[in-house]
């Protein structure tokens, strides 16, 4: 298989405009003759479904939640970047583009990132017109802040609920199209397979999560906007239902999967409290603007703190190690996410971690409160402190917060070309579920930008080009391809239900998650990865022989839903390990212990690894085949990141 | 469906009617209270009886009273229908445990019960006084001006000597004052009145400010005042009404 990214020629600034002009159009009167399926209703899915409906296509939208408004984009707190330069601080499309490529540690495709930066401004205009209540100054104009250590203030925000507000904006646009009859919405419906007819994506197989009915839906094109795969790790900041099944099923049907090992570990999450925990909660990154990160200077002191003999506040200044400030004097506590996370892991591995489990570091506001007063800190972080107190029962105004890194975002995903089409013709991937814009590490406030860029401003253009080329003929769901796919899905469900083993789905998921976290988490090495691969294979085999499911398919059955997802996580987990093993370098969220500088920093290998890994599925229990899309950097100069 | 009908049959429209009729009844309470305060004038009931005559004979007032009767009926019927409608909105199964006390005042949840108490009272109250005043035979009283210019009772007529001709004479009135004084010698009636006024107080405690909220009047600057006024109103007005039977009872 040869992969072609279809990057338009010309200078970086002209590519998108030129490409838009060159795309074929579907006559307005003919748009209603085309059906498009959109799976997922987060930022990318809802915005795509709404925009396609507005253009006149017939859209069918699917989500597993009870309402499209609940997709996990809703949980994003911080903000959304745009190159508006409202602050007059030297921002520009080019600078946003440059920062994003650099922040992604030079593993993203230049042309896609430039387009993202270019449409970022339209996104803000779009959202304001929809009634998104962004923060404003007294003069009535939009307020911006600097986020994630950016040198300019380009982040738009709506309190700590930016994701929610943007999603509700997209949801309202989607609702309008549902009312107009242009979008048919299928909530509580999970996609279980994609259907190919003559090599093209022509529909999907779904399960109605209330009745269990397995149904076929046919269309001219299918857009997957199904989010990331962070839940492979069991514990993550993802929602409980987030899963990789749609993307993985597409992968099994021929869509290449890219850079699966690029996962982002967010440094400021509330630490795990025990083995009963189901989910990790993120604390906004903005806390690092004022909070100071530290651990006790020695393992002995840390031991005493863990046992409760010493309290954090008892430790004098000289017994505290503000390790980020010490190692990175110029960026201090504001180093990028991957660097902050890794260092937290190191100090905890040294035995200097705090909290019951020893897997936590302090984030201390004592000095900020001394400097600015309680009220200023309350105004800035009041609701975050409140949220923290509700979860932990500790008052961050009085004792330092405890934080630990957690899986947050997955940069990898389905490989897509410049049009966001996967290697299956007619199958598109938008938002977190594609690999495209963030390289090996995503910058803060960029995920929302990408989701909406794909949904509002990219797919609605590029999909027309494809549709104009394939004709209006519909494929009926009575077609053999649908019947076969349905039968296959039913067989998979029956098999799972009939294992009648002894271990619950959750137990398997936890075991998989632990393997992934221990060996394919913040730091990886060849030995550990090889071990993990073997273990995952064993676990997967065992799963199909010993998993315990109850009930039937013909009812609401949470265990069955989860069992199908975990089955796919097991396969994806192995591919993540393969990818991490193959990538003999450290970059962004992927840190191979064998590849670090003398100072312990990530060491990239641009000569051998400046490519996108695109894996092809070769069949059950067969190794996936690696394809490479070489990355060409014509505008951005490759440098080693340094935050010292 | 015409827009009027559509608006007034919506949930908000029906609440609007409850609110407007409620406000009208609140205003009526003030008028009624001012009139009844005449009972406390030390003039042998002249001011009160004259007021009662005026209220039952003046054409404009009589017209207004018909509006009042309709308002009461509307307030009751619409509220009762809404309460039933709201109960159905809960669906077939109700909660096994509810802790409403932690999220809402008791009065607000029991407007139906409180309203029913007030309604029962109104019926008894009307049959006690209003019916007799309007249609029945009552004691009568004749007043005269004394030398000092005060008004004094010239002659009392018992119910048995009730005569419509006599009523046409100057300074002769149906002696409602006496009926009130007699009625409030009965303990059970006094207690009933006090209880009813308590019911009214609680009904108003929620109803007063709720009426404004339904009209869409909720403002950072004015609502606290409306709430305080409502509370004061719901204490003072029923208390004054209740003071009448109490005072007459103890006057004996």
């Amino acid at each position: 298989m040869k992969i072609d990214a279809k990057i338009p020629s010309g200078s970086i600034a002209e590519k998108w405009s030129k490409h838009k002009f060159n795309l074929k159009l579907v006559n307005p009167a003919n748009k209603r003759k085309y059906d498009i399926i959109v799976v997922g209703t987060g930022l990318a899915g809802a915005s795509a479904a709404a925009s396609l409906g507005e253009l006149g296509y017939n859209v069918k939208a699917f989500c597993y939640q009870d309402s499209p408004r609940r997709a996990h984009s809703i949980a994003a707190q911080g903000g959304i970047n745009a190159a508006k330069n409202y602050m007059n601080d030297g921002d520009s499309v080019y600078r946003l583009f440059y920062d994003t490529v650099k922040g992604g540690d030079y593993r993203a495709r230049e042309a896609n990132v430039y387009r993202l930066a270019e449409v970022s401004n339209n996104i803000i205009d779009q959202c304001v017109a929809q009634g998104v209540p962004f923060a404003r100054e007294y003069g009535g104009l939009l307020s911006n802040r600097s986020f994630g250590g950016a040198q300019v203030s380009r982040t738009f925000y709506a309190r700590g609920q930016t994701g929610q507000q943007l999603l509700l904006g997209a949801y309202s646009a989607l609702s309008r199209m549902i009312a107009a009859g242009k979008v048919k919405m299928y909530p509580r419906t999970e996609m279980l397979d994609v259907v190919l007819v003559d090599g093209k994506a022509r529909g999907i197989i779904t399960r109605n999560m209330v009745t269990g009915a397995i149904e076929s839906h046919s269309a001219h094109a299918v857009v997957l906007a199904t989010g990331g795969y962070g839940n492979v790790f069991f514990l993550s900041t993802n929602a409980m239902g987030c899963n990789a099944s749609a993307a993985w099923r597409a992968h099994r049907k021929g869509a290449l999967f890219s850079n699966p090992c690029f996962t982002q570990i967010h440094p400021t999450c509330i630490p795990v409290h025990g083995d009963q925990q189901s989910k990790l909660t993120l604390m906004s990154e903005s806390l690092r603007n004022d909070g100071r990160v530290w651990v006790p200077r020695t393992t002995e002191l840390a031991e005493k703190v863990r046992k409760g003999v010493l309290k954090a506040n008892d430790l004098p200044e000289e017994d505290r190690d503000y390790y980020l400030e010490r190692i990175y004097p110029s960026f201090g506590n504001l180093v990028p996410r991957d660097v902050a996370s890794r260092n937290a892991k190191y100090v905890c591995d040294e035995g200097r971690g705090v909290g019951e489990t020893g897997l936590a570091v302090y984030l201390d506001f004592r000095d900020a409160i001394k400097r600015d007063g309680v009220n200023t800190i309350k105004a800035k972080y009041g609701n975050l402190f409140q949220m923290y107190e509700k979860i932990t029962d500790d008052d961050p105004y009085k004792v330092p917060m405890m934080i630990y890194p957690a899986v947050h975002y997955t940069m990898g995903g389905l490989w897509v070309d410049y049009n966001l089409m996967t290697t299956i013709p007619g199958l598109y991937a938008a938002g977190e579920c594609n690999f495209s814009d963030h390289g090996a590490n995503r910058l803060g406030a960029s995920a929302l930008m990408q989701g909406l860029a794909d949904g509002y401003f990219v797919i609605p253009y590029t999909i027309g080009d494809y549709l104009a080329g394939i004709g209006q003929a519909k494929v009926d769901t009575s077609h053999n391809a649908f019947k076969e796919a349905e039968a296959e899905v039913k067989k998979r469900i029956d098999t799972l239900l009939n294992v009648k083993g002894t271990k619950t789905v959750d137990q398997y998921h936890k075991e998989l998650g632990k393997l992934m976290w221990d060996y394919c988490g913040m730091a990886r090495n060849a030995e550990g990865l090889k071990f993990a691969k073997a273990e995952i294979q064993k676990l997967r085999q065992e799963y199909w022989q010993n998993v315990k499911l109850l009930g039937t398919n013909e009812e609401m059955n949470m265990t069955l839903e989860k069992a199908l997802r975990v089955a796919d996580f097991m396969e994806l987990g192995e591919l993540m390990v393969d990818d991490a093993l193959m990538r003999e370098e450290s970059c962004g969220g992927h840190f191979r212990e064998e590849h670090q500088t003398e100072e312990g920093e990530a060491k990239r290998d641009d000569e051998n690894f400046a490519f996108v890994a695109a894996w092809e599925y070769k069949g059950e229990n067969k190794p996936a085949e690696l394809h490479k899309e070489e990355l060409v950097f014509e505008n951005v100069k490759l440098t080693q990141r340094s935050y010292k | 469906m015409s827009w009027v009908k559509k608006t007034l049959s919506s949930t908000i429209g029906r609440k609007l009617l409850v609110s407007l009729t409620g406000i009208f009844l609140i205003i009526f309470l003030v008028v009624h209270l001012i009139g009844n305060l005449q009972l406390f004038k030390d003039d042998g009931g002249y001011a009160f009886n004259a007021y009662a005559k005026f209220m039952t004979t003046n054409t404009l007032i009589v017209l207004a009273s018909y509006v009042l009767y309709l308002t009461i009926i509307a307030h009751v019927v619409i509220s009762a229908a809404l309460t039933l409608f709201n109960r159905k909105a809960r669906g077939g199964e109700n909660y096994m445990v509810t802790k409403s006390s932690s999220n809402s005042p008791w009065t607000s949840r029991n407007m139906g019960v409180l309203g029913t108490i007030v309604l029962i009272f109104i019926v008894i109250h009307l049959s006690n006084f209003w019916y007799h005043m309007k249609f029945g035979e009552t004691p009568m009283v004749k007043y005269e001006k004394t030398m000092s210019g005060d008004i004094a009772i010239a002659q009392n007529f018992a119910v048995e000597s009730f005569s419509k001709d006599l009523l046409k004479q100057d300074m002769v009135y149906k002696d409602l004052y006496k009926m009130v004084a007699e009625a409030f010698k009965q303990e059970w009636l006094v207690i009933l009145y006090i209880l009813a006024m308590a019911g009214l107080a609680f009904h108003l405690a929620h109803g007063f400010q709720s009426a404004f909220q339904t009209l869409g009047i909720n403002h950072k600057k004015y609502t606290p005042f409306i709430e305080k006024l409502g509370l004061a109103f719901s204490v003072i007005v029923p208390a004054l009404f209740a003071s009448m039977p109490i005072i007459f009872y103890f006057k004996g």
Partner: protein
Amino acid sequence: MEKGRTYTLKIWRQNNSSSKGAFKTYTIENISPGSSFLEMLDILNNELEAKGEDPVHFDHDCREGICGMCSLFVNGRPHGPEEEITACQLHMRSFKDGETIVIEPWRAKAFPVIKDLVVDRSAFDRIIQAGGFISVNTGPLPDANEIPIPKQNADLAMDAAACIGCGACVAACKNASAMLFVSAKVSQLALLPQGNAERKRRALAMVDQMDQEGFGACSNTGACAAECPKGIDLTNIARLNREYLTASFAGAE
């Protein structure tokens, strides 16, 4: 570390929308006070599954109080005993060791039970579809800073927009009224100049849909606002009344 606690759980069990439900009592042991309420249910479900019993179905997703999916009526209150949080943010330290906890689904005619504690809240979606949007197509639009919006209005709009659509307001209201939910969306869009063009239509259409869905009428008890996990307040309901009545009496439609 504090020792685990024991609880008696009374949970509503119902197979599907057409079957009859009933309460079932479970005992659960060794629960850490630091566990979240939903984690406690996870543990119960794991135990039930191990015993071969059907796990308790309940809606949940983000588990950080923003998606609005969780919908449990705990000990007589939506989202349990604590203020301004969702059930997923509730922790077991809020319950005494040995306490009996009654868990029920939202009860409203407009929210039929699907299974156990799972209810159908699609009525909310249909209300938004009736008019909870600003009719702009995707495309080139005026610059975001073209219309200044007074900070105060933007803040009030944000207060209202914080609604997560969980339905606690309906669950708490003795009339199962959806006024707080509807008023939050109407308020958000009425407070912004962008929403002005459709303001009257929106109020009429959304209230009409709300009534059709079978929600009760508001009797201003304030239970909704008191139980709202996002602190949406009653001024929004007054604003909805105002918007609706103005639209009805002064509007041309």
